[in-house]
Every structure is written in structure tokens, then in C-alpha cells.
């Protein structure tokens, strides 16, 4: 092929011809975030990649609070199915328009309702955004009822507020009895590490195998 090519620009046009037409229009939430602080895209996708590597490969995945679905391509890339759940109709409409595929679907619904089915993994980018004022125990009950017996969950918690220390403790305390084992991580500037303290911009808890939920039903 290169024998026919006379310029780099012609070569590049051949590459772009291979891309097809897969343009998308982001919704108001992510458009706003990108206009205000484009680094947010790197940070949320870094979280999604970590969650995907930990809990999504070859597994059925539920994302609680999927918002406009921006994390869904990474979370679903090697998953055995992905469902994004959010109670914001407009966000789900945007997600469906941009990211629907045979391996991804999106559902509008209350985040605390009992599951219509269970999943092998449940992920939530920011429990604070979906759990305003509610106890983390309530959230964990929801997560656990959505999980298979060998389930995994990845919960993110933004720690940018003054209450970070207390928030981390409350989320950890809620997770501990809900899973056989919980691994703690922190994330700064898109890098995941094992220092799960308020110095982390986000803490990430990985719950492994839910404990019996009989007492919760």
C-alpha cells in the first residue's frame, strides 16, 4: 500500500475511511463536565477500567447510577452482558442513543428496587451521587440482593468533602458484613493505589462474595 501513497495526509485519509461513521452526541451532563473540566473524562474512564479489570471480565454486570453511560463501553468490553441502571430518564435516553449494543442495555428505574434478576457483578462509580442522605447499609442491601452468590462489587466514593474520613468509615462498616472479604483501594489523579485514606480523591471498595442476605428479606 505504501508504494501508492504520496503523502502522510493521503495515508491518514485511508485510515479514517476504515473508521466508519460512529459519531455520537453526548448528553447535557457529560457535555457540561467536558466543557468545565475535561480531565474528568480521564478520571471516570480510569475508574471504569479498574472496575472492569477487577470485576467485569466474562461476567454479567450491573452499573448502578450509570448516568449517560459514558463508562459502559469500558465496563462492557469484556463482560458477558452489561445493564446500566439510573433513575434519570433523560440520562438513560442519552445512554441508549449512544451506547446501546447487543452486549449493553440501559434501564430507567429506582435504584433501591429489588432486582428483576441478579448479576455476577455490581459496580457503582460514586455511591455519594446515588445515596444522598440514605445509609450505606441500605445501599449495600440493594447491592447484595442484585448479586449472585459468587458476586463481586466495586463501589467508588468521592472524598472531596470535609466529611471524607467519616464517609469512608461508614462505607467500610457497611461493606464489611455484606461480603466475605472487602479490599480497599484509593485513587488519585486517575491512578489506583492501596492507600485508602481521605488523602485519596476517591476510595474504591471491592466486595467479594456477598454474605447471606436472608436476614435482609
Amino acid at each position, binding site marked *: 500500500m505504501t508504494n501508492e501513497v504520496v503523502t502522510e495526509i493521503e495515508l491518514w485519509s*485511508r485510515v479514517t475511511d476504515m473508521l466508519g461513521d460512529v459519531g455520537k452526541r453526548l448528553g447535557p451532563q457529560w457535555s457540561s463536565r467536558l466543557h468545565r473540566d475535561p480531565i474528568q473524562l480521564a478520571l471516570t474512564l480510569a475508574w471504569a477500567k479498574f472496575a472492569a479489570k477487577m470485576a467485569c471480565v466474562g461476567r454479567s454486570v450491573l452499573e448502578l447510577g450509570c448516568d449517560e453511560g459514558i463508562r459502559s463501553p469500558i465496563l462492557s468490553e469484556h463482560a458477558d452482558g452489561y445493564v446500566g441502571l439510573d433513575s434519570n430518564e433523560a440520562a438513560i435516553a442519552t445512554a441508549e442513543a449512544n451506547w446501546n449494543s447487543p452486549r449493553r442495555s440501559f434501564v430507567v428505574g*429506582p435504584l433501591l428496587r429489588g432486582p428483576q434478576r441478579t448479576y455476577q457483578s455490581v459496580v457503582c462509580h460514586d455511591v455519594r451521587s446515588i445515596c444522598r442522605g440514605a445509609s450505606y447499609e441500605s445501599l449495600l442491601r440493594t447491592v447484595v440482593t442484585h448479586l449472585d452468590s459468587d458476586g463481586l462489587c466495586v463501589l467508588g466514593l468521592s472524598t472531596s468533602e470535609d466529611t471524607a474520613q467519616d464517609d469512608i468509615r461508614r462505607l467500610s462498616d457497611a461493606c464489611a458484613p455484606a461480603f466475605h472479604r472487602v479490599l480497599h483501594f484509593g485513587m488519585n489523579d486517575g491512578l489506583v493505589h492501596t492507600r485508602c485514606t481521605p488523602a485519596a480523591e476517591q476510595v474504591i471498595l471491592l466486595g467479594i462474595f456477598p454474605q447471606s442476605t436472608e436476614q435482609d428479606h
Partner: protein
Amino acid sequence: MTPPASTAGNAPFSATQASSSNPPEGMPPVLLGRYVGYWFDRTPRRALYCASYYKFAARLIGREQRVLDVGCSEGLGTWLLANECGSALGIDPDKAAVQVARQNWRDPRIEFTCGDFLAAEPGQYDAVVNFDVIEHIFPEHAEDFLARLAENIVADGMAIVGTPSLQGQAYASDVSKAGHVNVYSGERLEAAMRRHFRHVFMFAANDEVVHTGFLPMAHYLIAVGCIRRTTC
């Protein structure tokens, strides 16, 4: 935007917060053109890697800087540079990509030019950035390309060149490889940069993580050139 749906008896749990998330007035919805759209559809982690490398560059360059982004494509990284560093000009020969960039990022701090960097005269900048460009430049033009980067920065300016590593090509997609005509090892990229800059700092990247680890095991290389040699 539609208000959050009722949580039907689960009042403490709210929908995704929407009230503070509307785009700033006059800001359009962000379009992903065929290039970035393709990433998200086919290789979604690529969007993460690209945004992370631009973030790395922006943090190195610092504030109140004028930045030239060569090969800006749809301008998402250019906007990140403008937003973090002060102002940015993106240049790219791909008309469709530049059209998307201009539609998305309308701000006094950012401009886009559609054209061939090797033939353009963009001016003098505090820093020049290019990611995923030099591997598309024929080897016989690569020295001119690096020289042009150096010419378009101030004497104590900074040039940041990012490119997939030679070792990573075994794992590159067919679409990626179709455009790669000049893939560098870490050693060759450093040697090429040293011909144009007095100080060259080499970084390795694996996925979104930029580090100073063993270059032959990096899937991506980032060379940072400081103080152009023409000033010596």
C-alpha cells in the same frame, strides 16, 4: 432536562443529579466524531489513554502557557490543554475532525487550524504537544517534523512527543497499524529528540499510567524535549 424520576418509596435515594449538570450557557452538546466515536465503540480504553496522556502533558507544561497541539484531531485534548494551561491552538489536516473540534470547543482560549503542520507557520508557543502523530510521518520526513516542532516553540520551550512503542505493535489493531509508517523504539525516539533539544526526558506508558519504568516494556512512549538546540 428531565427532572429525576421518582424513587417510589425510596426517598433517600435520588436520581443522578441533573440540576447542576446542564452545559454552561452557550456551550453546545459535545459531539464525538468518527475518530473518537470509533475509539469508544471499538477500543474504548483508547479514549482513557489519550485523555491521560494529555493530562500528563498539561501538568508538565503548567499554567499561563500558550500550547500548540499538532495532530489535534477532534480537539478534546486541545481543549484539555487550553483549559489547564491557558490557551491552545490545534492543527490537523483532517477536515472532518477539525470541524468537530470547532463545533465542540468554542472559547477564547482555543483555536483550530486545518492544515499540514509541515507546511504551516503556526508561530511561537511555550510548548508544543503531539500524540499519535510521528508514527504517521514517513521516516524521511521525521527529522523535518521534529525540527518544525522545535522551531515553533520559544527558546526555553517544551516539546512533548507521544507515540506507540515499537514493542507494542504486536498488539496494535489493524486500523492502527494501517497508518503506522514510522514506529519508534525508546532509544530511537530519544536519539531523534536529542538532535533538536538539549534535555530529553523519556517516559514510558502502560495503559493510562505514565511512569519512568523500563522503556522496552512500555506500550507507549512519551519524550519531553526542553531547550531547543537552535539556541545553543
